[in-house]
């Protein structure tokens, strides 16, 4: 029943970190000669292969720690314009070289869920150089050549759909280069609330060793983990961000709230201007802005854009909310909780509190199980059990005892949660798998593929924990798993968000959705329609020759059919619909790739074509900007620097980087009880013996045999005497 992958040695499982792990960490600053443009990827390959899966105990690939301030200082300004259903964001990164050397800098930057980068500008002194879209390899070549020739160059590459890197080469001593990146993203609407979530930092990702199968795989993992993390002991405000949002939702907004940052709000009527109250903040948590409509909630939003001789439409349709309280049929709920090192700090407390909240809501007729995972996994019960008060009490104790440590092997936990469906409950019993995690992993594709293949009758709900969860992974998992995605970023949000989620879980979803378009041929995305839960809209994007006719969406709410028809000609013009369509279509292509419906090469080709056509940065296309004038004197060396990131707020630096503080905390713990609870920090492994005689079973079996034998004899005698 246990792990489908080789067990780590016990020392790794208990967080006794081999010194080799820290030594193997990627150095913060890589110095390389200017005239070896190809050295960068090659060097990455070499280091990645070296500290890869060769050593069985070295499971957690650690990002480096920056214990000195970087030579290049980065400041970021975000200028966000919300127009109706779309937000357009301009991120301006100022790279200031404080050293006396010529520098190249690389910075890993997050992108919101559904965001699509389509613009790059590099400002050098008085000149503005506009970036152009190229296929990835070609863009890299252009950049490397410019770098080698001493010209300024900027390159934006996608590493994950929600993660990209900015490279800037040949920044002179004392010089500042501005790189500005444009992207757009859809505004999320649910239950009458519109929201915009802008990630500002990426939590260090865990790379499962089994995913490092080849040099390209290792290089890929390296790109998402090589950014060093600034040691918080430096107490430096690194990577300051200023944010301004120009809000024009098309209606009078009300309840404009920034959940995690203090803001000043100005303006009236249909417009608002939102700025950070303190000017700038360190980039260490997501920025979230939400608003409502002052008037009644619109249930249909129809938008269109004409681009390159084609019409693009976006339709957001919200099915009616079923408000009737019905008896909820018995359900099976499987909770999967992440207690890996990245959850250390307030995240673990939030996850535990959320789990306890959910456990408290179980009814005796429900069935449930709890699975915890770090780089190992425990199923509390072999299979789901009835939620009797005793069993729930066991689960509560189990949850309270969880400690964050170790790597993040999420795949085995997902497989375990899904595999149990075959033996637990009846096929028509509602089965809900609830994940509590920050999703800090690098093997997202593998997760989605597994979920797509083995999802079965399970519905998967994601609760993104912490200040900077991996939105892309969780939104996609919720979609493929026909569930929802909820954020819990602060301890204060636990009860409100969990109550809302539990309420959602009790209501019937809108299932079996289908779309019929009359009057024209249209290329719609997403192709796989999700299930919808209370108040969530269905967002469809389509491309067609000329918009006309009607679109009918139908499905089932609970046991009743539902359908709605919209006239597409009523759509109002909106910018960026074309690009959002392309971005969504790329997700479809990636989904087909995950599910094995599309060969790698064909998928890459389709993505590259979409990227080139719409000018988007994708996994296959990059933006590159090159100055024509060489500036670096011949012979001057170029120093390359990976710019450090802040640790996301609430993450525990020490849990992640070797447990020094965890040990200190154990030593200082006031009571022995706390020390006992922290046994994992400094501990000696001990196997516990088999401690059950099982005599009751033997006794019961014996008595049963004896009684049946006697009963048989008595019957036989009686029968015999009658005969």
């Amino acid at each position, binding site marked *: 029943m246990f792990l489908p992958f080789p067990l780590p040695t016990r020392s790794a499982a208990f967080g006794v970190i081999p010194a080799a792990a820290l030594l193997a960490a990627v150095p913060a600053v890589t110095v390389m000669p200017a005239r070896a443009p190809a050295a960068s990827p090659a060097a990455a390959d070499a280091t990645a292969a070296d500290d890869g899966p060769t050593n069985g105990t070295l499971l957690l690939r650690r990002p480096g720690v920056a214990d000195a301030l970087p030579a290049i200082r980065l400041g970021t300004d975000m200028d966000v314009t919300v127009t109706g259903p779309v937000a357009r964001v301009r991120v301006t990164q100022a790279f200031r070289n404080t050293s006396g050397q010529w520098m190249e800098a690389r910075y890993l930057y997050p992108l919101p869920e559904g965001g699509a980068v389509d613009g790059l500008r590099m400002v050098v002194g008085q000149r503005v150089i506009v970036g152009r879209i190229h296929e990835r390899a070609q863009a890299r070549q252009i950049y490397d050549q410019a770098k080698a020739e001493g010209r300024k160059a900027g390159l934006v590459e996608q590493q994950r759909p929600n993660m990209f890197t900015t490279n800037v080469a040949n920044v002179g001593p004392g010089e500042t280069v501005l790189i500005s990146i444009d992207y757009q993203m859809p505004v999320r609407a649910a239950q009458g609330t519109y929201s915009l979530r802008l990630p500002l930092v990426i939590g260090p990702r865990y790379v499962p060793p089994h995913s490092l199968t080849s040099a390209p795989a290792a290089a890929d993992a390296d790109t998402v983990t090589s950014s060093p993390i600034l040691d918080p002991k430096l107490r430096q405000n690194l990577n300051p961000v200023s944010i301004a949002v120009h809000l024009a939702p098309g209606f009078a907004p009300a309840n404009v709230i920034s959940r995690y940052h203090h803001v000043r709000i100005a303006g009236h009527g249909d417009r608002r201007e939102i700025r950070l109250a303190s000017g700038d903040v360190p980039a260490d948590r997501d920025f979230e802005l939400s608003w409502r409509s002052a008037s009644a909630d619109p249930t249909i939003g129809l938008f269109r854009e004409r681009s390159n001789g084609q019409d693009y439409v976006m339709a957001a349709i919200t099915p009616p909310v079923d408000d009737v309280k019905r008896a909820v049929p018995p359900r099976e709920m499987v909770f999967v909780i992440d207690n890996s090192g990245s959850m250390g700090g307030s995240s673990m407390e939030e996850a535990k509190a959320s789990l306890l909240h959910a456990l408290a809501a179980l009814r005796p007729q429900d069935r449930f199980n709890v699975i915890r995972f770090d780089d190992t996994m425990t199923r509390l019960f072999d299979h789901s059990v009835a939620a009797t008060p005793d069993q729930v009490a066991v689960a509560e104790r189990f949850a309270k005892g969880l400690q964050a440590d170790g790597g993040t092997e999420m795949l085995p936990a997902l497989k375990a949660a899904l595999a149990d469906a075959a033996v637990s409950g009846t096929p028509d019993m509602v089965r809900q798998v609830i994940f509590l995690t920050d999703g800090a992993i690098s093997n997202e594709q593998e997760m989605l593929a597994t979920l797509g293949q083995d999802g079965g009758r399970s519905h998967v709900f994601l609760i993104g924990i912490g200040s900077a969860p991996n939105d892309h992974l969780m939104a996609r998992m919720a979609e493929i798993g026909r569930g929802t995605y909820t954020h819990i970023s602060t301890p204060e949000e636990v009860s409100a968000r969990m109550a809302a989620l539990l309420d959602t879980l009790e209501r019937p979803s809108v299932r079996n959705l289908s779309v019929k378009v009359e009057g024209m041929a249209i290329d719609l995305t997403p192709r796989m329609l999700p299930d919808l839960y209370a108040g969530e809209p269905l967002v469809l994007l389509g491309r067609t020759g000329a918009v006309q006719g009607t679109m009918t969406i139908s499905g089932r709410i609970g046991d009743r059919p539902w359908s709605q028809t919209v006239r597409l000609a009523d759509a109002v013009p909106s910018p960026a619909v074309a690009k959002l369509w392309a971005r969504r279509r790329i997700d479809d292509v990636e989904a087909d790739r995950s599910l094995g419906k599309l060969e790698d090469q064909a998928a890459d080709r389709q993505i590259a074509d979409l990227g080139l056509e719409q000018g988007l940065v994708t996994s296959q296309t990059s933006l590159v900007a090159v100055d024509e004038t060489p500036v670096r004197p011949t012979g001057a060396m170029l120093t390359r620097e990976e710019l450090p990131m802040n640790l996301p707020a609430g993450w525990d630096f020490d849990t992640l980087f070797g447990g020094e503080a965890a040990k200190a905390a154990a030593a200082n713990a006031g009571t022995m009880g706390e020390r*006992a609870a922290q046994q994992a920090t400094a*501990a*000696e*492994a*001990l*196997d516990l013996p*088999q401690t059950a005689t099982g005599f*009751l079973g033997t006794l019961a079996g014996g008595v049963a045999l*004896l009684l049946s*034998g006697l009963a048989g004899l008595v019957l036989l005698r009686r029968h015999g005497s009658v005969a």
Partner: protein
Amino acid sequence: MAAPTTRTGGRAFGRGLVDAALIALCALGIVLTARGAIIPIKAAVAQVLLERAFDRSVAAREPQKPWPWADMAPVARLAIPRLGVDRVVLDTGSGQAMAFGPTLLPGGARLGAPGTTVIAAHRDTHFHFLQRLRLGDRIMAEGLDGRTHRYRVVSTAIVRWDRFAIPEGGEMLALATCYPFDAVRHGPLRYVVFAATDR
């Protein structure tokens, strides 16, 4: 009753066969019942013998065997006043010794020594009371030297048998048994009660 004799004979033979099978079933049932029943009886009787051996050991200041052919000896006496529990603890962690009483695991610390002393016993005999232990309960362990060590229950945990680790430093007592308590089959989970020195 005028059935042909051959048929009667066949019937009698068949009945004899069924009879024999049912008697065998009864016999098997008796054997199993006895094997099941002997376990708690053995566990209870052994404790009486062990108590005497323990008193002798304390008097002699060294372990005394409870019966001549025993390959283990008592090392401590465990008492939980609130539950009226009194158990004699044996010195080897073997499954054989565990039939007679809780045993001190060799992987843990010795009683009264720095570190964590781990005592394990069966969930359905000697450590059945573990499920009734509450936080704050007092546990007393008397060693062969006649000294009594006092502990107080500070936490409980459910762990996998191969995922257990004892905390270093401090002086603690851990009582371990199988989990869940009412399970019939053997499972991978263990229930551990941690108690800290009570001064």
